[in-house]
């Protein structure tokens, strides 16, 4: 068994679960803002007013009987994603990337029929994936097609970028790449690769899978050391803008880069995980303290993104 001493963790400024819950989430996140981020449909609508783009909404299934309309709507579509509005951690998300006759092709390559998707919608409505098991709404979104420069790093799934935004300042970011182990999902605990990104430049720092440092993507074999995210300042500003939209002081903003539409907001998270620190190889606490100590916070998202880029840059 290998352990790290609490003192070493303190030196690194590693934020832990208990402190995140007590000192940041409980203190900076209003309970009343939670439904906004816990419900993807509400998130979509509210951030739209703040000029934050999200994948196009194709259909909202609210009632059991509306499921039959789904078939008609999906008739002509090549790809789409079905999501539970209140799902968390990517649960219940089904991504269809193509058609094979009457059957649909999932991101993993598996073929499913309409009945499967209808049952899936019915499960979502019953609240199978929602946080508290309450009845839910299913949303069907247009498929995000990742920019090829990034997509090649990811195995099957769309790579996304998680940015921790504290009081409107983007403080830490990572790129999440799907792997075989993660079954095309971008969840680190399922085996996705996390690549730390330099806030100053959008360049990759180092990468982890299952909490262990790696240098090559396990499936694509590509080196992870020299990834650069295009339109980086624009993405940071988008993330910063979500603070105004939701009022959440501490949150995770998940963005994707669509090859046509540019950066899109996938979802917000009021309880972002701690693995981002391992992907970056540094702790969150020093940066959070820097923001907490600011005497005069910046008012506009642009200023905050700029401040973060100069203050938290690694090089």
């Amino acid at each position, binding site marked *: 068994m290998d*352990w790290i001493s609490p003192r070493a963790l303190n*030196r*690194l400024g590693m934020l832990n*679960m*208990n402190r995140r819950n007590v000192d940041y989430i409980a203190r900076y996140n209003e309970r009343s803002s939670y439904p906004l981020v816990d419900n993807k449909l509400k998130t979509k609508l509210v951030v739209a007013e703040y000029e934050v783009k999200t994948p196009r909404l194709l259909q909202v299934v609210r009632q059991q009987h509306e499921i039959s309309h789904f078939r008609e709507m999906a008739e002509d579509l090549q790809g789409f994603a079905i999501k539970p509005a209140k799902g968390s951690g990517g649960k219940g998300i089904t991504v269809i990337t193509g058609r094979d006759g009457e059957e649909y092709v999932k991101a993993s390559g598996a073929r499913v029929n309409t009945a499967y998707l209808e*049952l899936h919608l019915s499960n979502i409505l019953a609240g199978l994936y929602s946080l508290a098991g309450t009845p839910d709404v299913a949303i069907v979104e247009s498929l995000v097609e990742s920019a090829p420069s990034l997509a090649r790093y990811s195995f099957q799934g769309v790579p996304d970028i998680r940015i921790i935004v504290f009081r409107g300042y983007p403080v830490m970011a990572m790129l999440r790449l799907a792997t075989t182990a993660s079954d095309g999902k971008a969840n680190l605990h399922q085996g996705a690769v996390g690549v730390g990104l330099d806030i100053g430049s959008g360049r990759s720092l180092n990468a982890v899978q299952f*909490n262990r440092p790696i240098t090559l993507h396990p499936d694509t074999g590509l080196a992870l050391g020299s990834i650069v995210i295009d339109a980086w300042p624009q993405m940071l500003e988008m993330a910063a803008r979500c603070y105004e939209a939701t009022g959440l002081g501490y949150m995770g903003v998940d963005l994707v880069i669509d090859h046509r539409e540019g950066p899109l907001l996938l979802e917000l998270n009021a309880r972002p995980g701690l693995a981002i620190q391992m992907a970056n*190889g540094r702790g969150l606490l020093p940066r959070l303290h820097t923001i907490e100590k600011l005497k005069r916070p910046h008012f506009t998202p642009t200023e905050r993104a700029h401040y973060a880029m100069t203050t938290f840059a690694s090089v």
Partner: protein
Amino acid sequence: MTGRSRLPFYVAVFLLITAGISLAVWRHIELGIPWLTGEQRPVWMVEARVDFDAGNGPVLASLNIPQQPPGFSILSEQAASPGYGFSIIDSSGSRRAEWSKREASGPQTLYFKAQFVPDPTAQPAIPGRKPGTRRVFWEEPEATAVREILAQARARSSTPESMTRELIRLMQPDTRTQNTTLLIAEENYLDLLVGMLNHAGIAARTADGLQLEDARRRQQLMPFLQIFNGREWLTFNPKTAEQGVPENLLLWRQGSSSLLDVIGGDNSEVSFSMLRQTVPALQLANMQSASSGLGFLSFYELPIEEQSMFRMLLLLPLGALMVAFMRIVIGIRTSGTFMPVLIAVAFVQTTLVPGLIAFLSVVAIGLLMRGYLSSLNLLLVSRISALIILVIFITAGLSIIGYQMGFNTGMTVTFFPMVIIAWTIERMSILWEEEGAREVVVQGTGSLFVAICAYLLMSAPLAGHLTFNFPELHLVILGLILLMGQYTGYKLSELKRFTPMKVYD
């Protein structure tokens, strides 16, 4: 650090914990509720037997019984006497047991039993009014002898106590002078002593003590001398002048003129037999507190049914404490926040191994059946409802099979809450589909591990004893749980999880 000050919070937690502990200590001292379960206390069972010959007519027998013997408290009293009316009469300064019967003839035997608990703090009530002295008239030449002995004793003493001691010493055979030999005949020694002390202005009386010895029968009372020193009655051994009540001496009669009066009978006599018993300290505390007025604070006042329910309920905070500790400080992942507590409660009812086997087999069979259900493409609600019914079938089946095979434990499966099991199966199977078998194993074993820890804590006899008899200790548990809610340090599991960060240190 911004935000509200946490000082009031810590003060409140401190108050909760001190209030809990001090209440418990106070109740321990005041009511004698023991800290440990198995504590035993000695109790003396003393039986007075009254024998007399009744003479064909109404009979009234009256026996002096102890009121408040120093060093003991009375736990229970009862009389056994077939055909007799019985009552305890409290008259000023003495208590008497009275038996009465209209027609009685021949030898009669009456019994009076009492239980005494050694209690060093028990003292007789201080008389409200100063007892008077009785003037004794002495004839010459005794009067001169008395005067001289008293003068001698007074010269060598300063207080009523020392006066008494000196007087007793002067009256002993080896120090006797001519004066005393003149006065003393063996049978009137104690009366003479009382008379002389009264004559000297010191209130004095006789008392009867009983030497407590285990399993003694036909024990006789021993005479003792008591004097009043202005505040309280002091006891002296009339032979040795030793002051105070010796250990294991029960003063049966104090301050009353006669031990036994029998009207309508003769040849009466009293004899005593005694037995040392040990009684669980808890039972003793309950018997005593029931009469002391503080008893209403205890759960023992509730009907038995409610008591057993509270016994269970009061264990829950311990389980919650264990879950909070395991999740916040150790960092063990469980499925559902308090499912481990519910599983542990079920284990308490079934005991661990049968409970574990039952739980695992029900969940395993349930998971198999859930696999079939999911292939039916049912709606979620009806799937879970169906699962609940299946779980009931499974438990019923296991109970019957267990019973046929001769295991009684099959029945105990029913203690598991059906809905919880059904929901567990549902969650586990979804977890299986979405995150893989590994996550099911991690969360499943985490839940079971925490449940077993909680069970071990809750099933400890001491835990059951303390939570039920000192419910105020739950304030301490509450304080600890609140404190844990403020713990912002690293979990034990995080020290493992963040190990790769060593590279960057």
